[in-house]
């Protein structure tokens, strides 16, 4: 097993290599969520990569399905499949579809890609865990732009109504969506207040790339007995690559050969938090 520091470096470099090889894909929003996935898969979740369908496991849903590269890299590095397969991303016949496919790749709990739907499915999964008297958790990652979708708020209402304390929602608040800053495209306002008003146990994580802050927020969320938790993580889109950071142009664009070389070099030296 890699250290968490090694994880973030490997996963970030994988994201660059994959999207570069595919000549398309979403590096920006993948890089902003690296620490959240690395911590969940390498430390927090009760899972077994050799038995991806193991009964009574923790579940993770990537509601922002376009960040598939970060999920694929994490799964590969955790042992679900050979990292050599990562560069087949988006190719005809590849198990690494543009958005995750639950039937092709081990470790994908449900196929996502159309925004807002993953969180709704995650509510269903958390309900199923309750019906099965499981003590496990369902973790779901949404983008901030994704919160424009009405179904997200329907899902949050249902999670609160059903007292799903086993549902932990991560909001990757990197502040950017395709057309620009979230506050310019469709202002979301104060997300902490919004999730609180909906009845979630809401925690603001000022630096969503800081493992220790993420770790303590998850631990705190697990002490709550009667409501879901929303962890609002302030992140940087494109984190770790100087020319990608905070630039919405890198939402859905792959780096060329030169840019790839520069990004990989920067990431070799990059240390998070």
């Amino acid at each position, binding site marked *: 097993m890699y250290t968490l520091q090694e994880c973030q470096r490997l996963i970030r470099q994988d994201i660059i290599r994959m999207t570069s090889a595919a000549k398309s894909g979403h590096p920006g929003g993948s890089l902003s969520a690296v620490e959240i996935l690395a911590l969940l898969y390498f430390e927090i979740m009760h899972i077994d990569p050799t038995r991806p369908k193991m009964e009574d496991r923790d579940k993770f*849903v990537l509601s922002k399905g376009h960040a598939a590269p970060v999920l694929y890299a994490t799964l590969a590095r955790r042992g679900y499949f050979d990292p050599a397969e990562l560069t087949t991303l988006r190719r005809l016949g590849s198990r690494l579809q543009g958005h995750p496919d*639950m*039937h092709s790749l081990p470790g994908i*709990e*449900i*196929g*996502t*890609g*159309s925004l807002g*739907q993953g*969180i*709704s*499915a*995650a*509510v*269903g*999964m*958390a*309900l*199923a*865990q309750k*019906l*099965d008297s499981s003590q496990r958790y369902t973790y779901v990652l949404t983008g901030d732009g994704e919160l424009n979708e*009405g*179904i997200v708020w*329907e*899902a949050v*209402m*249902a999670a609160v*109504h*059903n007292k799903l304390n086993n549902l932990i929602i991560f909001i990757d608040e990197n502040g950017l969506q395709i057309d620009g800053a979230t506050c310019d495209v469709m202002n979301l306002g104060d997300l902490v207040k919004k999730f609180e008003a909906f009845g979630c146990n809401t925690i603001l994580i000022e630096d969503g790339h800081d493992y220790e802050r993420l770790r303590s927020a998850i631990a705190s969320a697990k002490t709550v007995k009667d409501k879901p938790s929303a962890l609002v993580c302030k992140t940087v889109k494109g984190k770790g690559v100087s020319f990608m950071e905070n630039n919405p142009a890198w939402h859905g664009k792959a780096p060329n050969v030169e840019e790839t070389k520069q990004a990989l070099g920067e990431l070799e030296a990059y240390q998070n938090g």
Partner: protein
Amino acid sequence: MGEMRKMYGRALVELGEENENIVVLDADLSASTKTSMFCAAHGNRFFNAGIAEQNMMGMAAGLAASGKVVFVSTFAVFGTGRAYEITRNLVCGNNLNVKIVCTHAGVSVGEDGATHQSVEDIAIMRAIPNMKVFVAADAAEAYEMVKMAAKIQGPCYVRLTRSTSEDVYNDKADFSLQTSQVLAEGSDISIFACGLMVSRALQAAKELKKENIHAEVINLSQIKPIDKETILKSVKKTNCALACEEHSVIGGMGSALAEVFSRHYPVKMDFLGIEDRFGTSGKASELLEYFSLTTEEIVKRAHRLLER
């Protein structure tokens, strides 16, 4: 005369007793769809999504991905319309065990009018890969259909009506996944019908018989996958087909038939249905007359087709 909805509720209650994995969701219409019967019997496995059909479908997908057999119900217009893209991407895209059973399909919803009368649901559901589409002709068939839906793997759409239906089957319907049923044999014209139109088609066949016209009546309760063998066998005998449905003539049962005939055995054909328009308010019986979804119209269309 029976109510499809009540038989749906009864089937659900029985399924809930037989299988711990059955879960039912509704969107604040459980008293109308009769999922309330399941709620009363197995309340811990019933979830009301509130008036939020999109999230209801998303939750259903999550439950099904976790091994549950999930029935979701609301009115057809909301279940197939409002929740469409979640059904398309989450439910069918992932090929999950979600059974969408919608009541209040067609203009026979009655007084509520156009907003609540789904005339395009078969077309919408039929176009989605992995989806199976069933339409119940009466209460007995609705019961069998729901029992069957629980057994098959993957998503399906079951279309039920609000109003009472004339009984097509005496007590027990014989709904099979493989075959469509020839309810009356004949060699002059093939009349294909689904839903409330089946009993009318049977009545029309009786009328035609008086004039020595022998109509074959087929209940096409399984619209997708379609039973090519039975329908082709029929038209090879009669060389003409009349499709009758309480649905738009665009994309419904008639279109499904025409897709098969035009490829394999082109025959002259007519379509009795809603002609590219919305419904309106009125009593169910009045509306079926208003939209010409009657025995008399079937007889008239049959004559016209035979003369063509």
